[in-house]
């Protein structure tokens, strides 16, 4: 007689939780106090840190774009134009520079930026 039900009740051994918890402790190695060594405290802090990291990654991109736009506005105002005018002119001349490159130009190569800005303002 072949009994097939009883083997189905045997559960496979769960993996050692040491390794799962070690993944958390590797991220909490530089924390203060119990959050460094006690799993129940560490996991809370680590999950918070990871969610902050997620939000921060998205926010950083927005912050950088805002910074570049602010710098471009300042550069344009110095030469008597504004950023929308510069944008339009660049589009019409089929110049596909992004805000980051333009901002870098405005800082490090100011004469190029001035020439560009005035040319495109005339356009």
């Amino acid at each position: 007689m072949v009994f097939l039900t009883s083997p189905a009740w045997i559960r496979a051994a769960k993996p050692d939780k040491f390794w799962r918890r070690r993944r958390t402790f590797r991220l909490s190695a530089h924390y203060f106090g119990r959050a460094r060594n006690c799993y129940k405290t560490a996991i809370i802090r680590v999950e918070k840190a990871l969610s902050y990291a997620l939000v921060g990654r998205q926010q950083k991109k927005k912050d950088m774009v805002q910074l570049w736009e602010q710098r471009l506005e300042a550069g344009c105002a110095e030469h008597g134009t504004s950023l929308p005018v510069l944008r339009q002119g660049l589009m019409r001349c089929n110049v596909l520079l992004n805000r980051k490159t333009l901002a870098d130009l405005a800082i490090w190569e100011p004469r190029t930026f001035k020439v560009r800005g005035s040319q495109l303002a005339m356009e």
Partner: protein
Amino acid sequence: MSFKHLFMKSTFVKAPIQNGIGRYVGQLQRITVKFCKEHSDSKGVRDFIENQVVDFAKQNPGIVVYLKPRRHRAPHVKLEYLNGETEILSAKCLSERELRQWLEVARGSSGEPVARLRKMQHTDRPSIQGVWTPWTSVPPQTNLETFPSEEGYRAPQREQTATEKLRELFARQQEQKQLTEETTGTS
């Protein structure tokens, strides 16, 4: 993303153009092999010393090899580089072949520590035309200006305010009235 959990140094990108373009100088200066003569952890090291160390030393005349037999200690290799960096490579339970492989890695490496790159680009000369300063676009005649100056420092023109518009409208209205009065008066 924070990298503090890595406990790793951080550097900027560097191009080691001073070594290799003309003449290549190996950066590994000396290796000090500390091992135990009896313990089983040092077996790989002992085999390496028996079979390969002399060949290694002959093939690399620029690297000085020191051997330190010290009892009851775990075996390790101390790597010292020309820029002063020291690295300790644990040789515990390494086989002879593995130890040789690690030494080959060390032989080809500069002494720069393994570090996180902060930015993927670096330039010594970021600006060709000169960095922007507040005086980049200011004409040099301002150096010789005497104040008060009418030409250079006029207030920027702005749009008419609502009050000014009303005033203008009123003045025009009054003029119109006067004209009609005059015409009606004369006629």
